[in-house]
Structures are given as C-alpha cells and as structure tokens.
C-alpha cells in the first residue's frame, strides 16, 4: 500500500502507528505473559508469598515426587484413548458424508458440527446426568439386560472423563478427516476401479493412505483439547478421576503454589507442542494434486 510515493504526512504517521501496533500487540499480550509465566516456574513459594529467586526446585519436585509423574502419564494415556475413540467414530461418519451428494453433504456436516457451539458447561452437566446412577445410559443397559441393576461405573471416575471428553470432542475429529477425504481426487478412485480393484482394495490402498493426514490432524486436535481441559475432569471425575489439568488448576486455587503450577504448565506445554508438531508433520498433504 506504499506504492504511491507521495504519501501525506498524516498517512505516514498512521502507517508508522500501525507498524508499531502490529508488532507491539502480539508481543505485549501473548509473548510477554508467556515469558513471565515461564519465569515464574523457576520461583518458589514460602509461607504464602512468592519468592523471586531462581531455582530448579519445582522441576525437581515434578520429576521426583511419586504423585505427579504417574498422574501425568495416566492423563496422556487417557487423552490418547479419547483421540483414538473419537477417530474410530468420526472416520466412518466423515466417510459417509463424502459419499453423499451436493447439498446433503454440507447440511449433514453442519449438523454434526453445530453441537460444538453449544455451551460447554451445559453439555458436561447433561452428559453427567446421562451417565449417572439414574441416568439414561444405566436405564438403557438395564432394559437391554446387559446390567442387572444401575451401575456407578460411568460416573465420578476415569471412565466418566473418557466418555465425556469423547462426546465433547468428536466434531473436532470429523472436520479434518472429512476435509482430507474430500480432497482425494475422484479420478484416482475411478482408475482403481477400472483396474479391477475391489471396493475394499480401493479403500485400503487409495482412500485410507490419502486420508491419513486428516486423521493425524484430528488426533492432534482432540488430544490437545482433551489434555488442556480441567473443567470436565473436575465435574465428572469425582475423587478417583484425577487428571493433570486438575492438579495444575488446584495450584492456583486451594494449593496456592503459582510457581509450581507454572512448572506443571511448562510440562503440559511440552507435551502439547510435541502433539501439535507430530500432527503438523503427518498432517501435511504430500503431493496428491491431480
């Protein structure tokens, strides 16, 4: 926009202001808070006040205390499971969408994505009531004769967190898988058909490999969203469903140890960044432009 050469002084001043803002805004409101946060992880707490002296104490505590590493690991396993279940459900649904024609395809996609916009808190509450002792799930299982009597297996434990997160996050898996399936050129499928491959062969050797980038993005989305969630475990996890997010959150509430909480966040950030990078690495479409 500076091609005109003879810009007015007012315009020049404005463009200078915009330049400063364009750099300052992201730096002040994103980078600086994150840097301070990182700095906090090296501080410590003494009798309720924060000591601004650098030490590795928080990190040593995280790695040596018998509580934190197992919870951290269990949470990672939980979130990987959530990602896997979400993909197993989302893949067939996304595949089905791509078999539909025109208007129907997008209408149905929309239908499956709209629940994302519904109040998160309300959904958690409703899911909890479905999973509960008097809930719909127990009623259905008893009616089907699978259970003799209502069970507390589905609420206030790790299962509950797994089921709730899965229900909440399925749409995040559907969208990337759908997009990668939709991008597969139809000519490839027709060619495979012409060359005498069966439907299953075409799926296994053409469709599935070409849709794996979408699956990778879906897995990384769901994993990152699941591991950062502290509301769901808090609400449906009860006492036994203890996740890393809850421990982290409690450092800023009841436990009141902000520096230690900051160190736990760094550990969380490392896992999240790794997940995003893996998703990015495998989520890129490599040369299927036909």
């Amino acid at each position, binding site marked *: *926009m500076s091609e*005109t050469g003879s810009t*007015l002084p007012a*315009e020049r001043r404005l463009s200078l202001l*915009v330049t400063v*803002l*364009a750099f300052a805004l*992201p730096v002040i*409101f*994103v980078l*600086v*808070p*994150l840097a*301070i*946060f990182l700095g906090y992880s090296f501080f410590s707490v003494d009798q309720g006040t924060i000591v601004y002296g650098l030490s590795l104490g928080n990190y040593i505590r995280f790695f040596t205390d018998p509580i934190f590493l197992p919870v951290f690991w269990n949470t990672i396993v939980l979130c990987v499971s959530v990602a896997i279940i979400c993909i197993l*459900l*989302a893949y*067939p*649904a996304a595949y*089905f*969408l791509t*078999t539909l024609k*025109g*208007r129907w395809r*997008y209408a*149905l996609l*929309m239908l*499956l994505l*709209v*629940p994302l*916009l*519904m*109040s*998160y*808190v*309300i*959904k958690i*509450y*409703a899911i909890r009531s*479905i999973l509960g002792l*008097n*809930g*719909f799930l127990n009623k259905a299982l008893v009616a089907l004769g699978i259970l003799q009597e209502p069970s507390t297996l589905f609420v206030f434990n790790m299962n509950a967190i797994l089921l709730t997160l899965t*229900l909440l996050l*399925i*749409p995040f898996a559907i969208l990337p898988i759908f997009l990668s399936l939709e991008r597969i050129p139809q000519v490839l499928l027709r060619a495979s058909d012409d060359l005498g491959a069966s*439907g299953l062969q075409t799926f296994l050797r053409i469709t599935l490999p070409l849709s794996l980038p979408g699956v990778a993005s879906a897995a990384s989305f769901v994993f990152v*969203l699941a591991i*950062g969630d*502290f*509301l769901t475990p808090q609400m449906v996890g009860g006492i036994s469903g203890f996740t890393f*997010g809850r421990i*982290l959150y409690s450092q*800023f509430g009841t436990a009141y140890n*902000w520096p230690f*909480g*900051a160190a736990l*966040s760094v550990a969380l*950030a490392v896992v*999240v960044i790794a997940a995003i990078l893996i998703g990015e690495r495998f989520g890129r479409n490599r040369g299927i432009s036909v």
Partner: protein
Amino acid sequence: MSALPRLSTIFLAAITTLVALLLYSPLFVPIVSSFFTISHGNVDWSSPTLSTYVALAENHDILVALRTTLIVGVCTVILSVVSGTLLALYYHGRRSGRSLLQFIIFLPFLMPPIISGLALLIFFREIGLERSLLTVVIGHTVFVLAIVYRTVLMRLQSMSRTLIEASYDLGATGWQTFWRIILPNLSSAIVGGAILAFALSFDETMITILVTGTQSTLPVRLWAMMRLGFSPDINALVALILMFTVLLCVLAARFLIPRQVATERT
C-alpha cells in the same frame, strides 16, 4: 464411490446416526426438560409447560450474567475485529517477520486455554491490573484474534491485486482505495469473523474462570451453579441459547462461504 456395496453403506449410515445421536443427546436432555417435568429420570410427557421460561425471566442472577456475557462479547468483537483486520492488512504482502508474528498470534488459540489463561492471570498481577471485566475482554480478544486475523487474511489473499492497482491508476489516494475498494471487498469476511469471534467469546469458560473478577459471565455463572445442581429454568435458558447459536451458525456460514461456491455445489 458409487460402487460402494450396499451393506457397507448401511454400516456407515448406522455409525453416522450413532455419532449424531451421541452428539445431540446432551442437548436433548435440557431441551426436553425445559418443557416437561422430569423426576428420577422419567419424563412426564403428559403435561407440557412453559413455567421454566417464566421462571427464567425472573431469575435476576442469570439475566445479569447474560448481560455481562453480551457486553464482554461485543467488546471482544470490536477489539478483535479492529486489531485482527489491521494486522491482516499489515502482514498481507509483507514477508519479513510475518511468520514469526503470525505464530505468536496463533499461540493462544493453539495452546490449551489453561496455559493462556494462567499466563494472562500472572501477567495482570505483575502489571498491577485488577481482575475485572476488562481483563476478561483482553483474555477473550487474545484468544479469538487468530480467527478474525486468519479469516480476513484469507480473503485479502484471494482478492485480485489489479483492483487496488486500478484504483491507484485512476488517481485514488491510499485512504480512498482503502475505504472504497479494500474494505467493501473484505466486509463479508469481517462480518463472518466477527460472528465466529462472538460465538467463541459467548461460550469461553476456561480462560474466563481464571481471569475474571467478581462479575461472572454466563458460562462461569453456570459453572458455579452446577456444583449445587441446576434449577429447571436453566433448561429453558439452554433451549434458548441453542436456538440462538444455530441462528448465529447459519449466519456465519452465509457470510463465510462464497455465494458462487454455494450455488455451484448444490
């Protein structure tokens, strides 16, 4: 894919139906209970009632929280649209430093909200800014900025350069070109981005819980109420919010999907 065997089509359709049921079951419960009484997990279908909606209109706490949420949402939209559009205009066509700053803008959106929220919480404390609605608005803006930025930038990139060049050739100043050529071309992207930003702000819970002061937005208020259990009028609220959200969603789709594409595909 027309050669798909019948059996596998049925299987796929069944799974899709299951997924839809799973996704909608948590929405179904509150909506049904907003019209019917539920006791011990059994719905009393015989007597539909609107009493929950009447009770909602008298629930002062909720209405105040709703108003707070709307104020926060509108402020967030204004701030994020202005700064997101400016940033997109600035970085469009500029290579130096763009990828790094773009990465910074996207960080709060990619990072778990608990990390963004806590970083802001500590930041506000260090600079001595009391937690209030202002800090909530800042938190929301930082969170949704990436969306507005990206929406506007993508439209800018698809816009033909010749339009701008023609405008300069015809003797328009930078300002005139901006107001009469660039902005009108961006308007639908800006409106779509604004709607998305509002929808995200409206439901943002995790960052808000961390950076809010004494005034709570609707999701935070609901979160606090949930520990004790909800009164029936909350169900009415949920039903209303659902309708409102679907409306927003349809509007956003209208503005974000280009008209030609929409007609081509039908």
